[in-house]
């Protein structure tokens, strides 16, 4: 089967769309209303309530005699606008609403009601920014989006606008841009500053026409952006107390024709904008909860790991007893680079009765010759035509004479006391399998250090936790020991997954045995030294683990040791090695969005907090393992390449599993660096 690729395109596209939606939502969320810091005094107010700016100059118009034009900015607002509309209807009065486009998108029904009841709409930008300081393209965008939103909601076009913070001189820049887009600017005669909430009396006094004035002029009020109860009350009093004036819309007041119908294009764009804004709001909310959830899970996991590791590390150490003959089985396929070092390190072990069996699985690089050439009488060499690692292991197990079986990868170098320490837990007759402690031999370079840290954390935090919880999902193929009986109960080494070590461990647990961790049984292994090699290795591990977990899914409902594996181990794997990595790309998209839209200190605080926690956990794991802490500086850097590689592997594995292709075993190209370790340690 062809390796699936289309999902990468989907992932990229999804990430881009998500980022764009988040950015749109972030842009909209910035919107507010008049308020905050007080604006400069009205002395700077430019002339003329209705301004027509063209290259030849500014012409103005005012409200006709006998009329008063109430205007409401910053709405529509679901709480206050309907009350004002009710009052206006009650008094057969008309007014003008300078609406904020993003609010129109949120409350299209309300916007339609404004128009349906004979009032006029004006543009008050999309997000109510202080536009005077913004570049012209941003000013135009704010106008366009609002025009679209109004067209989408009401099917009408709008030709009047009022810039936010219109009482400032900076607003004139916006007025000029708006004129270029075809808008008349509507400023005000009477700014009530009702948003300061100085009391209903103050608002009414500011709005009331001068005694004997011919025209009531344009009165600025606000129906959105905060608590507008005073504005509602002031409106009621104005409508009842101001006698002798007609309450008109701005266009009516200055004798302009009413706005016409919007073109189909604008309506379509407006509806698209509304849908997008709505989708963006839902997406942003969902993302927020995802971040909260995954952060919470990560913190709980870390706490459990550290507490479990502490308890495990304080247990009494295993003794050093003789527990009967141990057979060490080394399956080897093209391991010429490391096999000599592996075998020598095994022969040099201090456990008294050790039998070493190398099973050459049809190597083509002279692996068998190397073993034979070592001339070690205690090493038995078996050869078979290439049949895969599980088959090689089973061949070795069949030939072994010991009751305790140590399974070793052909690229692993054992510490001199590793075999003896590894088998000590078998003193307990309930223990069926023991995991040793694998360490990365080649720790130079960033990739080597990253893997070293990952191994140390994985072994010293995860595995200690699994040991206490009696739910160890994997005894690593690099250094693990099995009781012959347990291996037989599991039906030998299974060959139907890519991760035979995980599969075997799960089968042993489900057969009723315990699996424990011997931290002091140390072996060094060669870690992939290129991203490509690492990708292949992790793909095999991840896909194999998924296969094994699926194969043993019935453990979820079992009793006893199998149930513990199912409900603790499998759930842990599903949550932290599948579901969270699958959502990790979304978290990264959110991080990019955060860099653009969230306050820098907030992003920095979250990032530093998380990195500090990771560094502390890694430092604790290193200390448990008596490893130097100097590689800790690479932890913050894991966020950029390593993290992505690890989660993209899970994506690839999940897609491959869903599509159901056959996966080939992808062997790693060995360079012999584990062997180099044996000579230096």
């Amino acid at each position, binding site marked *: 089967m062809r390796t699936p690729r289309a999902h990468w395109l989907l992932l990229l596209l999804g990430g881009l769309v998500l980022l764009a939606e988040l950015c749109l939502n972030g842009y909209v969320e910035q919107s507010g209303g008049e308020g905050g810091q007080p604006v400069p005094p009205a002395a700077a107010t430019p002339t003329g309530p209705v301004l027509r700016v063209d290259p030849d100059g500014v012409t103005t118009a005012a409200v006709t005699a006998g009329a008063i034009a109430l205007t409401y900015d910053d709405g529509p607002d679901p709480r206050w606008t309907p009350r004002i509309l009710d009052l206006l209807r009650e008094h057969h009065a008309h007014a003008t609403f300078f609406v904020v486009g993003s609010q129109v998108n949120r409350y299209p029904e309300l916007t339609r009601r404004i128009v349906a009841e004979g009032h006029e709409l004006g543009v008050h930008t999309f997000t109510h920014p202080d536009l005077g300081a913004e570049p012209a393209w941003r000013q135009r965008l704010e106008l366009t989006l609002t025009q679209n939103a109004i067209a989408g909601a009401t099917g009408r076009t709008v030709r009047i606008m009022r810039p936010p913070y219109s009482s400032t001189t900076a607003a004139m820049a916006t007025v000029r841009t708006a004129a270029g887009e075809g808008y008349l600017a509507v400023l005000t005669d009477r*700014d009530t500053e009702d948003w300061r909430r100085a009391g209903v009396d103050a608002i009414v006094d500011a709005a009331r026409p001068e005694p004997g004035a011919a025209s009531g002029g344009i009165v600025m009020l606000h129906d959105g952006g905060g608590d507008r109860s005073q504005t509602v009350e002031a409106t009621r009093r104005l409508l009842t107390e101001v006698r002798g004036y007609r309450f008109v819309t701005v266009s009516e007041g200055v004798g302009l024709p009413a706005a016409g119908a919007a073109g189909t294009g604008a309506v379509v764009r407006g509806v698209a904008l509304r849908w997008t804004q709505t989708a963006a709001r839902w997406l942003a909310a969902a993302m927020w909860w995802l971040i909260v959830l995954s952060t919470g899970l990560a913190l709980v996991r870390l706490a459990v790991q550290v507490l479990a590791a502490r308890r495990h590390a304080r247990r009494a150490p295993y003794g050093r007893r003789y527990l009967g003959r141990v057979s060490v089985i080394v399956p080897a396929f093209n391991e010429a680079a490391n096999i000599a070092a592996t075998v020598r390190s095994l022969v040099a072990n201090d456990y008294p009765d050790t039998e070493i069996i190398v099973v050459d699985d049809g190597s083509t690089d002279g692996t068998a010759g190397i073993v034979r050439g070592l001339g070690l009488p205690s090493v038995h060499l078996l050869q078979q035509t290439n049949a895969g690692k599980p088959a090689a292991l089973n061949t070795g197990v069949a030939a072994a004479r010991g009751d305790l079986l140590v399974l070793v990868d052909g690229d692993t170098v054992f510490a001199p006391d590793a075999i003896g320490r590894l088998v000590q837990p078998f003193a307990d007759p309930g223990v069926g399998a023991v995991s040793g402690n694998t360490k990365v031999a080649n720790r130079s370079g960033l990739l080597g250090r990253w893997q070293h840290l990952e191994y140390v954390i994985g072994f010293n935090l995860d595995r200690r936790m699994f040991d206490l919880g009696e739910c160890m999902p994997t005894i690593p193929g690099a250094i693990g020991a099995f009781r012959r009986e347990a291996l037989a109960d599991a039906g030998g080494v299974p060959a139907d997954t890519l991760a035979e070590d995980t599969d075997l461990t799960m089968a042993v647990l489900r057969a009723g045995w315990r699996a424990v961790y011997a931290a002091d049984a140390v072996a060094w292994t060669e870690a992939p030294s290129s991203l490509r090699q690492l990708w292949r290795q992790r793909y095999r591990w991840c896909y194999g683990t998924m296969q094994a977990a699926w194969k043993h899914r019935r453990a979820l409902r079992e009793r006893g040791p199998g149930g513990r594996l199912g409900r603790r181990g499998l759930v842990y794997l599903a949550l932290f090695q599948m579901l969270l990595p699958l959502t990790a790309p979304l978290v990264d998209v959110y991080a990019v969005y955060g860099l653009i839209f969230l306050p820098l200190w907030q992003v920095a605080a979250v990032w530093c907090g998380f990195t500090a926690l990771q560094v502390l956990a890694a430092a604790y794991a290193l200390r448990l393992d008596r490893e130097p802490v100097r590689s800790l500086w690479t932890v913050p850097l894991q966020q950029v390449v390593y993290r992505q590689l690890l989660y993209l592997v899970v994506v690839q594995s999940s897609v491959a599993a869903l599509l159901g292709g056959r996966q080939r075993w992808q062997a790693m190209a060995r360079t012999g660096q584990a062997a180099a370790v044996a000579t230096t340690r």
Partner: protein
Amino acid sequence: MFVDHTGRRRRLFTVLGAGLGVLLIAGGALLIAGLLGSSPVPLPGLPASGQGGRAEVPALRPETGVSSRPPVVRTTPPPKGATPAAAPTTDQPGNRRTSHPGNGNPKPSRSK
């Protein structure tokens, strides 16, 4: 494990994936469409008459015959005098004055 012998699962997920792709493209298209704007429309003229409603603007152009230039032509704000500050905000109609910064630099008006 996981091998799809009949090919049905593969087909199902290929279709689902294609559906998701279409959905994403539609979402992206909506997003872009919503952000697009129409080209500027001509500035509506203010009514030439209207009781007390008009500012004293001698050089007022006939409304619809004049298409406004985009404001780009005036990159600097008009001189101080262009926006008569301290205009009393009392509402005597017609008390507003506007001077014409454009007069010193007349732009030819395009006629339709």
